[in-house]
C-alpha cells in the first residue's frame, strides 16, 4: 500500500498528511504509532530507532476519528488512563495525576467536566477529551487520524482553530491526517501530499499551492483546468498565443497546462487564449464565480472581481495569466 516512502518530520512542527481516500495516509500514521507494522523500513524518533518497539513503548499519542473514549470511565479517568496504566515505579502520585488532569481539562476548556461520562458529551467535547487523554502521557509525537472527520462543519472549524492554538502553546510535534485540503492548508506548518501510497510533495502550504511538484498535487489542492498547450522557445502557447507561463527546461512540444480559476481572466477576444459562452454566474463572498463553457465543451470556472454581471449565453474570451506545466 505504501511505496518507498521517506518522510522527515521536524521537531515541534504541525505536519498535515493530505491525500484522497486510499492514499495510505492513515496506514502511515498507524505505522508510526506501531499499530501496524511495515514490511520494510525504519521509524526513527530523533536518533532512536523505534522500528522494533511495541506500541506501548513508542510514547506516541493517538487521537482517533471516532474518539475511542473509554465508555465506562469518566472524563477524568479517561484522561488519567495513560498515567494510571504505568507500572507503580513510573506512576506519579495520585495527587499529581489529579493535578495534571485538572490542568488538561483547563487546557481543553472543559474544566469541571471531570465527572461526566463520554455519552453525556457532544462530538466536539469528546474529541477534546481524546486530545487531552493523548497529551496526558506527554508523548514524543502526537498523531491525529482525521480528528474532525466525524464532526459537523461549524464544530470542525472551531476545533481547527483551537488545535492550532494548543499546538502553538505546547510546541508539541504533531502529525495529522486529513482528506480536507482547506484543513491541511489552514493548520499545517508543512503539508505532505500523498497519493496511492506515494509521497508526492512536502512543503509549506504556500509552496504546495504555488509550486506544486506534480500534476497530482496540483489536482488535489484545488480547482484547476487542463488546457492543451504547446511548449516552444521556452514559453507555453495556447492556441498560438503566448502565455506568461515558462516551459520547464528541455520540454518542447505538446504539453498539458494546468490553470487555477484565479489565473483565468475575462478578456477581449483579441487577447484571449480560450473562448466560450457564459453558462451561469453567482456571487460568493465578495467575488463572482462565472462558469464558462468553452469551445471544447468543457466547463471552466473563472473568478472575477469587476462586478460587471455577465449574463448567461454571453460570449466571452478568457486570458490565461499563469499556470503550471509538469515534466
Amino acid at each position: 500500500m505504501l511505496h518507498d516512502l521517506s518522510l522527515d518530520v521536524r521537531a515541534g512542527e504541525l505536519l498535515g498528511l493530505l491525500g484522497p481516500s486510499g492514499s495510505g495516509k492513515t496506514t502511515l500514521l498507524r505505522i508510526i504509532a506501531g499499530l501496524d507494522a511495515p514490511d520494510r523500513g525504519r521509524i526513527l524518533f530523533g536518533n532512536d530507532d523505534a522500528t522494533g518497539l511495541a506500541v506501548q513503548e513508542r510514547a506516541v499519542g493517538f487521537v482517533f476519528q471516532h474518539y475511542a473514549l473509554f465508555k465506562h470511565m469518566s472524563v477524568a479517568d479517561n484522561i488519567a488512563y495513560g498515567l494510571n496504566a504505568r507500572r507503580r515505579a513510573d506512576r506519579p502520585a495520585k495527587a499529581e495525576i489529579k493535578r495534571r488532569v485538572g490542568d488538561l481539562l483547563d487546557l481543553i476548556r472543559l474544566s469541571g467536566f471531570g465527572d461526566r461520562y463520554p455519552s453525556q458529551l457532544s462530538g466536539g467535547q469528546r474529541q477534546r477529551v481524546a486530545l487531552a487523554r493523548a497529551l496526558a502521557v506527554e508523548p514524543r509525537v502526537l498523531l491525529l487520524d482525521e480528528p474532525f472527520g466525524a464532526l459537523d462543519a461549524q464544530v470542525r472549524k472551531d476545533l481547527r482553530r483551537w488545535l492550532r492554538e494548543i499546538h502553538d502553546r505546547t510546541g508539541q510535534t504533531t502529525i495529522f491526517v486529513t482528506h480536507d485540503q482547506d484543513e491541511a492548508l489552514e493548520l499545517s506548518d508543512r503539508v505532505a501530499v500523498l497519493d496511492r501510497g506515494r509521497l508526492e510533495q512536502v512543503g509549506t502550504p504556500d509552496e504546495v499551492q504555488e509550486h506544486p511538484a506534480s500534476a497530482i498535487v496540483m489536482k488535489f489542492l484545488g480547482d484547476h483546468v487542463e488546457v492543451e498547450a504547446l511548449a516552444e522557445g521556452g514559453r507555453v502557447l495556447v492556441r498560438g498565443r503566448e502565455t506568461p507561463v515558462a516551459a520547464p527546461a528541455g520540454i518542447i512540444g505538446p504539453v498539458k497546462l494546468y490553470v487555477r480559476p484565479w489565473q483565468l481572466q475575462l478578456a477581449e477576444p483579441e487577447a484571449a487564449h480560450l473562448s466560450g459562452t457564459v453558462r451561469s454566474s453567482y456571487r460568493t463572498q465578495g467575488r463572482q464565480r462565472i462558469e464558462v463553457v468553452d469551445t471544447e465543451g468543457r466547463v471552466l470556472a473563472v473568478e472575477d472581481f469587476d462586478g460587471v454581471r455577465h449574463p448567461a449565453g454571453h460570449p466571452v474570451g478568457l486570458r490565461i495569466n499563469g499556470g503550471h506545466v509538469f515534466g
Partner: protein
Amino acid sequence: MSEIFSPTLPPTAHAEPVASEGTGTRIVLIGIAITFLALFLVLPLIAVFTQAFSKGIEAFLAAFREPDAWSAIRLTLTVAAIAVPFNVVFGLTASWAIAKFEFPGKSLLITLIDLPFSVSPVVSGLIYVLLFGSQGLFGSWLLDHGIQVLFALPGIVLATVFVTFPFVARELIPLMQEQGSAEEEAALTLGASGLHAFRTVTLPNIRWGLLYSVLLCNARAMGEFGAVSVVSGHIRGLTNTIPLHVEILYNEYNFVAAFAVATLLAVLALLTLILKSILEWRFAGELAAGRAH
C-alpha cells in the same frame, strides 16, 4: 394539478403504521403465543411442583434426606463449578481472537465452536466413550497410568464442557466484533500492556454479555442429561448428577421423590429466567448506549 391541493381531501384520522395487521389478527397471534407458552412452559412447571407436593411436605422433604440425593447435588455443583469457568476462559479467548484478529482457519474455528449445538448430546457423550473407554483410543494408556476418565468425574466434566462451550463464545463474538478494537488500540497507545487493556477496557465493555452467557452456560451445565448419561455409568452415590438421579427415581416408580428433586431444576430454570430478564433489560440499555458512540 388542482386535485392535489384540493381542500376537500380529508386528513387522515389517525396515524396507522404501514405494516398493520389489524386488531383481530394481533389478538389471534398473541393468543397463540400465550397458549404455546402456557402449554409447553407453564403447565409442565406447575406439574412438577404439584406432583412433588402431592403426598405432602413430609414426603417432599424425605426425598432430600437420601444421601444419594445429596451426592447428586454435590456432583452437579462441582461439575458446574469446573465447566463454567473453563468455558468462560475459552469463550473469552476465542471471541477476542476472532473479533480482533485475522488469521488462517478463523472461519473453521467459528464453525467448530457451533458444533456442539448441532450434534446430539448422546453423540457428544459417545465421543468420549470412543476416546477414553477401555476399548477407546486412549483406553490402554489411561489404564496403564491408572487414570479413570469414564464413569467418573473427569468424564462427566468433559461431556458437560463439550455441550456448553459454545455459549460464551457465541454471545461474545458478535458483541466484540460490534465494539471494534479502537478503544483497545487507544489503550495500547497510552502505554497499557495487552493484559491491562484487556482488564480495564475490554472486560468492562462486555460485562453484561459475559454475565448473560455465564447464566445460560450454567443452566445448561447443571441440566445436561444426554451426554452425561452416556459417560456417567449411573453409579449411585458417585456418578449421578441431579438429572440422572431424577431419572433413576422415576424408573423405580418413586414419583414423588423424582419430582421433588426435579423441583431443584425447575427453581434453577425460574431463577435463570428472572436473572436473564433483568440482564436483558439492563444489557439492552448498555448496548444501545454503546452503539450511540
